[in-house]
């Protein structure tokens, strides 16, 4: 089973990268390098330490922003899901945050918080948090009444009901929200570096585009996607360890 899924993963990667390589050779655009050129550039930048320096810079707002979004987002989401008052108070903020054209609002953030770490963390949070909050709140609200009632009839305190029933019951949807939120956070981190000040990976992208070093530009983009995918896989592992009974297999199995 595991082998089959691994084989499929490798196969789909081969097809994707093959198509990329061919598209680069046609070429679809003068500005579109082949897969191998891009990987060459990636190796070169890893070798000379450029990548390491860039990620040291990029990961800071990304990690801080995602940590804040995850913890605060889940906490606020649980709160919003439990109380009509907090739903009324917070939900509109996050709905607006999610719908807002963030790139257009970045100048406002810069005006208020400058061009430092704060603004970049905020961009990551604005991207990541709404979907985490809204998913968590929806899942908490939709906990089946019968298991809450079961908890109360077996003498659960309100805290027991939240910790032992509502949160585990909501966990699949909370994790779905985390996955969406964190991938949005990765987008936010790069967006911040493109729109506020070019640093880290955003700087590699901007700079190599300006000198027409397209392989390096695509290598940087590829690296951030790869990192996001690896991180989301890690999240999936964490979920599987924490909530084993939630793995129901697939409908067609």
């Amino acid at each position, binding site marked *: 089973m595991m082998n089959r899924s691994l084989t499929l993963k490798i196969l789909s990667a081969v097809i994707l990268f093959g198509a990329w390589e061919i598209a680069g050779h046609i070429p679809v655009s003068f500005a579109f390098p082949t897969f191998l050129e891009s990987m060459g550039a990636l190796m070169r930048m890893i070798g000379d330490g450029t990548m390491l320096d860039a990620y040291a810079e990029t990961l800071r707002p990304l990690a801080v922003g995602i940590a804040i979004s995850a913890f605060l987002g889940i906490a606020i989401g649980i709160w919003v899901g439990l109380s009509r008052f907090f739903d009324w108070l917070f939900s509109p903020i996050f709905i607006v945050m999610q719908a807002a054209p963030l790139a257009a609002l970045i100048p406002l953030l810069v005006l208020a918080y400058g061009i430092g770490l704060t603004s970049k963390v905020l961009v990551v949070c604005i991207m990541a948090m709404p979907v985490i909050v809204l998913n968590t709140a929806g899942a908490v609200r939709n906990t089946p009444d019968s*298991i809450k*009632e079961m908890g109360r*009839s077996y003498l659960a305190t309100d805290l027991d009901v939240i910790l032992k029933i509502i949160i*585990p019951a909501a966990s699949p949807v909370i994790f779905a929200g985390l996955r969406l939120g964190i991938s949005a956070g990765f987008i936010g981190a790069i967006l911040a570096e493109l729109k506020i000040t070019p640093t880290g990976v955003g700087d590699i992208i901007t700079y190599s585009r300006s000198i027409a070093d397209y392989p390096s530009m695509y290598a940087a983009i590829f690296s951030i996607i790869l990192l996001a995918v690896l991180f989301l896989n890690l999240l999936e592992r964490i979920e599987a360890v924490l909530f*084993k009974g939630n793995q*129901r297999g697939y409908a067609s199995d």
Partner: protein
Amino acid sequence: MPQTSAAETSAVAEGDTTFEIAVSTRNISKNFGDVEALNDLSLEFPLGQLTSLLGPSGCGKTTLLKIIAGLLEPTSGEVEVNGQKVTGPGPDRAFVFQDFALLPWASVIRNVAFGLELRGVARSEREAVAESYIKQVGLAGFEHAYPHELSGGMRQRVGLARALAVDAEVLLMDEPFSAVDEQTRRKFQEDLLGLVQDQKKTFIFVTHSIEEAVYVSDQVAILLPRPSRVSEIIRPSSFRGKGVDNIRRDSEYLDIVDEIWASLRRYVE
């Protein structure tokens, strides 16, 4: 031998009027907004016996059960369990749910031990208790399975084991067998008779099946809707001791089933 039978008859003769009462509900009314679910309902549940609440849908039988459980508050009136006024859920009552209400992320053993977990019983101790009840309901070997891996009947066995594990004096069962298939239901009904005999607990059993109510009960309370009231209390007497196989063709059993249907039929459209 003659002595024993004499003792039995005297107990029965006396019993008709003076059972020890485990649960009593007094003048219970319950309104949901403008809808009157229960109106001034009083009913007594004898200790160590199984009482069914039977009636057409909408007669408030599940509402009454949840009020006894302390999950709903009556608009007026009160419930007493062993002489104590009910103000909320308590350790003296355990609930078996129609839809099983199992935690899907928890294994069978954790589900069965959940009531004890909430009471702060140490893990090794509660798992030992849970294991013995899992065995008792016939699920040995499934301790570490998850609910979605079990059939409907097995899931309700887990729900039953969970209720037995907290060792409450009163078991409240809300249509416990309505979501399982007919054959499993028959087996459950037979097992329930054994359980009532072994456990010395008081069972309050909500059902909409006339046959089921008459089959399992020491006392059937028939509830009628609009306004909700207890219309009749029936105590089957002759077939209880005849063994599970003979009940369904006992003439008293059949008569009672017919009689109940005759009085309920006009409430069913």
